[in-house]
């Protein structure tokens, strides 16, 4: 193996070394932003090409993942967002945020309930969240970006990141509750009370 180039960071090798490991993260985020795997592939390819062309502006040693995701999100906003109708955000007042917890929180310490949920249904539920909730949920709860990273990426205060995350999680859990009742995994509240 050749020694790692440190003098000149603007090489295709340094791009492949530092940017390409984040390809899967970019793809997952793109899938949730676009709601469509083939559009996500296009978005990721566009992101990687833009990032490659701008690689001389990336400061070595800083956060390549955050830098790539910022490019990805800006590309999405500029080109894709207008083409697709916004999903109707779930009405937070219509869902009981603690519904699942009340059903299984005390009786299922190992979380078997969550294991029953169908992957596709969980993805659909995320994709139904309004974009501002969906993106913070994906960045924090799936890709593990810190609140500070998300704050600087979306250019919103950390307090806003937290409040959006709080609502996003509650909305998602509310939807998963409805799904679980529809599938018969848990009984709706009325029957539970009998």
């Amino acid at each position, binding site marked *: 193996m050749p020694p790692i180039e440190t003098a000149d960071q*603007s090489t*295709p090798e340094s791009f492949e070394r530092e940017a390409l490991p984040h*390809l899967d993260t970019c793809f*997952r985020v793109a899938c949730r932003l676009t709601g469509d795997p083939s559009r996500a*592939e296009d978005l990721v390819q566009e992101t990687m090409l833009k990032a490659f062309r701008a690689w001389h502006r990336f400061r070595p040693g800083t956060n390549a993942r955050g830098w790539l995701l910022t490019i990805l999100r800006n590309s999405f906003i500029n080109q894709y967002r207008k083409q697709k109708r916004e999903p109707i955000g779930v009405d937070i007042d219509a869902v009981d945020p603690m519904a699942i917890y009340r059903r299984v929180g005390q009786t299922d*310490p190992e979380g078997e309930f969550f294991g029953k949920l169908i992957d596709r249904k*969980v993805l659909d539920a995320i994709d139904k969240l309004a974009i501002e909730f969906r993106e913070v949920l994906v960045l924090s709860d799936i890709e593990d970006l810190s609140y500070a990273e998300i704050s600087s990426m979306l250019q919103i205060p950390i307090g806003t990141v937290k409040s959006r995350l709080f609502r996003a999680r509650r909305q998602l859990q509310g939807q998963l509750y409805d799904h679980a009742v529809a599938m018969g995994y848990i009984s709706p509240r009325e029957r539970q009370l009998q």
Partner: protein
Amino acid sequence: MTKVPSTVVDCDEALELLHEYLKQQLTPELVERVRAHIEMCRPCLSHSRFEANYLRMLEHKLKSITCPTESRERILTALHGEPPLS
């Protein structure tokens, strides 16, 4: 020397900080205060387990999604077709 947290948070604070606690977003001092509360409070412990299970489910279901091989190759081909970096 074990440092005893000066103030233990109450239930409302613990629940408000729960996700930040689980996502390791708190300062070490706050982590200790939340942990101290959860360890002695059954309802908050059960909330904590529940939310941890929820977060684990999300990661488990979504992290398995990866960029398709053909797409990865297409991107690499496109990158190699780019003019050299200046």
